[in-house]
């Protein structure tokens, strides 16, 4: 999808969040000289075009007690990557599942997934169960729990 100058102004205006008011799209439009219909139409087009993957409430699960955040990294043989990625990506409590490059010799892992839970033991139990249910016993992995959060905010593109 090709974005125009107007789209970038719109992105700049909405990326920090919509105003919590009765007519948020009209309000956004007023700030950048667009009418409500155009704002809604362009956001819809960006959703359709895949620039925006979702529009909604962005929850900070940490504040709700989801403090056990595990990044599980796997060293998947290249020929099994698509199969394993698709399996893991489809599981309910896995929020993200990405292929990233290996950086040998320091970093052999090429598949990353994120699991959130309220307690560390439960997350580890969940990982154990998925290793046996998805047939991943031979694939080396490690679990990196998150510790301190030094900074967290939505991506900015300006």
């Amino acid at each position, binding site marked *: 999808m090709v*974005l125009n100058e107007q789209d970038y102004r719109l*992105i700049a205006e*909405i*990326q*920090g*969040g*919509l105003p919590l*008011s*009765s*007519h*948020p*799209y009209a309000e956004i439009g007023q700030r950048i000289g667009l009418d409500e219909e155009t704002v*809604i139409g362009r*956001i819809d087009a*960006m959703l359709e075009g*895949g*620039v*925006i*993957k*979702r*529009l*909604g*409430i*962005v*929850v*900070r699960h940490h*504040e*709700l*007690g*989801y403090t056990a955040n595990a*990044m599980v990294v796997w060293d998947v043989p290249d020929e099994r990557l698509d199969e394993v*990625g698709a399996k*893991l*990506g489809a599981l309910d409590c896995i929020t*993200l*599942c*990405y*292929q*990233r*490059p290996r*950086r040998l010799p320091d*970093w052999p892992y090429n598949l*990353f997934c994120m*699991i*959130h*839970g*309220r307690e560390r033991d439960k997350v580890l139990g969940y990982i154990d169960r998925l290793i046996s249910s998805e047939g991943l016993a031979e694939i080396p992995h490690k679990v*990196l*729990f*998150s*510790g*301190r*959060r*030094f*900074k967290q*905010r*939505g*991506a900015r*593109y*300006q």
Partner: protein
Amino acid sequence: MATPAPLIKQAIKRTRRANSDGHPIALNDLEKRLLNEYQKGLPLSPTPFADIARRLGTSEALVLKILDRLQRLGVISRVGPVFKPKQVGASTLAAMAVPEALLAAVADQISAYPEVNHNYEREDSYNLWFVVTAPSQQRLEQVLAEMERQTGYPILYLPLQKQFHIDLGFPLWC
């Protein structure tokens, strides 16, 4: 006698700190439904919050009040778009292995970059993990190089190659 404003501010700060110390905020049923059902699919109608309220059997005023409160408490960061990585600008996950004693100081250096939006500690020899976004690939690489120079630690550069999961938020029953 009314409580002086500075004391109220202090009390609010204390509440926030208590939350980040692991006392989760409890949600009522309406709040849970709101968070479970509208992490995606915010109505693209002139009055999205009134539409949500109608579907949940409540009032627009209450929906707005809840969202405003949860945003102030930090439970939600915003109501708005989540952009797909790689579509607008360039971004990457990055990691550094920093001696434990220096971690907080190096983390502050990294957080100071406006291009960094997430910056976390993880339990590993690679103990500092952060996401860098920039308007272009060239600018992204400049920022990473600058970080390496400034901190003296090499960066593990881990850009996304393929996504196996569509991020639709995640349910609160996990």
